């Protein structure tokens, strides 16, 4: 089975700044890492390959600087990495991103399963995975935490874990899943694999190779724009209640009563 994992490079630090003009993240000078949800997706792919064989291709869209992050996935056991990069793609929102990525996936071809992280830790939209599936006209499931090949090998058995419940769902291949944290801690690369793959190359893909509608990519192809980004004010207050146990209980009741009358 050929698995394709979409990954995104996100800033490792939560203390990042925004460009005041474009309201997009200033990414220079900050260490980028694989979006944690994407690393769970990659871990599921690697474990699946361990059990069933096949190949893993990693695809990302971003600036050339993130090549190193893609290359790093070779040391985890990935077979091929592709970076879709082009100035024309800059400033894309989720729709333009998923349009571009789905075009790249069509171009790559022969993919049985696409795995994406549930969402990125910088954008937090959780839209790109499902949108890619729609563009490719594939069945998809969100919140996947584990997967197995069904005895009828044209299906996957997917464990789906949402905040309310866990479901087991059969999905026909080819398909797309967005992945949440499951029971597996993503494995670290091994020293041996790292050294063996030092000379492997990250394949670069640009808009030239893809038949893209120029009105549907980059900033121009993005119907949504970030107008403002701000940190919500935390209005919760911590109160330390002091005194004897009786005094503390009385005080607590008083506070709770006050809140009830406020509401």
């Amino acid at each position, binding site marked *: 089975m050929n698995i394709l994992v979409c990954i995104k490079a996100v800033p*490792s630090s939560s203390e990042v700044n925004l460009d005041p003009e474009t309201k997009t993240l200033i990414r220079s000078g900050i*260490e980028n*890492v*694989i979006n944690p949800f994407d690393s769970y997706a990659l871990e599921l792919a690697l474990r699946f390959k361990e059990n069933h064989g096949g190949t893993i291709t990693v695809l990302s869209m971003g600036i050339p600087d993130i090549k190193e992050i893609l290359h*790093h996935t070779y*040391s985890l056991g990935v077979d091929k990495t592709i970076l879709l990069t082009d100035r024309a793609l800059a400033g894309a929102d989720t729709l333009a991103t998923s349009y571009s990525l789905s075009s790249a996936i069509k171009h790559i071809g022969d993919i049985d399963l696409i795995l994406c992280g549930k969402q990125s830790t910088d954008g937090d939209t959780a839209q790109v995975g499902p949108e890619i599936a729609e563009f490719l006209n594939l069945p998809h499931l969100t919140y996947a935490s584990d997967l197995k090949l069904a005895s009828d090998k044209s299906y996957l058995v997917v464990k789906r874990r949402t905040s309310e419940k866990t479901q087991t769902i059969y999905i026909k291949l080819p398909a797309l899943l967005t992945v949440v944290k499951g029971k597996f*801690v993503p*494995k*670290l*690369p*091994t*020293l*041996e*694999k*790292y*050294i063996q793959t*030092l000379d492997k190359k990250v394949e670069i893909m640009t808009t030239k190779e893809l038949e893209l509608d120029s009105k549907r990519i980059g900033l121009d192809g993005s119907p949504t724009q970030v107008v403002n980004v701000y940190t919500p004010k935390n209005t919760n207050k911590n109160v330390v209640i002091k005194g004897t146990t009786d005094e503390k209980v009385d005080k607590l009741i008083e506070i709770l009563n006050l809140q009830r009358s406020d509401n």
Partner: protein
Amino acid sequence: MHLITVFLPKDDDLLRDESRLSGNAESVAYPISTEEIVSIIKLNKSKITVQGNLTGLAGGAVPKGGLILNTTKMDKILSVDKKIVHCQPGVLLSDLTKYLDDKRLFFPPDPTEKSACIGGMVACNASGARTLKYGSIRPWVKYIKVVLANGEILELTRGENFAEDLSFELVTNEGSIIMGKLPDINMPEVKNAAGYYIKPDMDLIDLFIGSEGTLGIVSEVKLQVISKPSKIVAVTAFFESEEDALDYVSEVRKSEVDPAALEYFDENSLEMLRNERMQNPAFTELQELPENYFSAVYTEIHAKEKSEQNELLKLCSDYIRKNGGNPAHSWLAVNSTDLEQLRYFRHSTPEIVNLTIDKRKKIYPNLTKLGTDMAVPDEYLHQVMNLYHNDLKSANLEYVIFGHIGDNHLHVNILPRNYAEYSLGKALYLDWSNQLVSWGGTVSAEHGIGKFKREFLEIMYDKNSIESMKHLKLLFDPDNRLNPGNLFKAGDN
């Protein structure tokens, strides 16, 4: 606002540090400047115990009556210029690290306890995992301002004041001359934090670093920092036997790999990590340990650029393979997320030990872990490990051995299951001290002597040497007011 206040029950937390020793005090002061320390010392004629953030493991900051002078409000970083950071003693290591990180700077000594403060680190010549490459805090301290017991101030800049053989002379800012002779002692040639640092013709700033606050109160410090290494990577390699792991360490530490840190996990540590990972939700994020390996070594490598990093990793891989390890089962971290995973793995061992002891304390309230802090010269690494394992196995004690193996500085942590085992462990600790000192080792490589390990200092130095150290203290502190009970028994002078 009064500088000195009466000790109240709310100050109770100031009576103990991480050694779990407990003391008492009559008054408390939180100075914010050198001038306030001088005023306090002149106002109050009682004994003074200087404190930082109370993270010490040897009871150095535990008061024995008198006044507590707590420096945690002296927490200002005053300036950074030409890679010299000028700061007050109460600055926390975590705050300093964050401050420097933003400027792409790096303070190489890496004491494990990030909430330790700079003053405390100077007082006990702190060290950590990266001491292997960068040394302890000592060489990085370029200047100190010290308030002496009489309220006069001494400023010492590295490279400016030297002893002549063992004779020395220092002049305070007020013009007083302190003349004397340094004790004639032989310090072990290993990483060491036990007793005063003394060498013929020494730089006299070194006398104060590691003196545990017994000679004066450090009120300002200048630290040398360096540019942050652009590549920090690490490998945790697993070995089938301890012998293999020790052979790897002996080779790699002398090689071009030039490890910044080499940290060890023995069979019991790995077993404990395996079990906790399966049973304790707090440790489920640990990496799955490969089976059939009985020891592990963490190797941290600093490089200037990627090509150098990769060459060093290849070399490291060769040494692992040559000594029976398998690079295919060796974890690698080349980015901050993965490095964090390896550090989490490394710090989990002492954390699990502490959790285990906390559980046992419910039945035996006075039980503590017994943690050693001894180091030996390179040639005794294999012997010291055999000594530990043989004695602990014959005594049927539960234990783990982990820590700074690059400096032959392993932490043996004994986990006594009852008071009888505690006594048994303590006796072993004393036996080992005698043996290790005879091999040219030290009884304390990084935690200091404080009040907890005074009997161990007496194993390292003979009576005359200790007497001459006490005389040295009296030269700076004639009434024995500063940190009484540290290094020597209180009232001994």
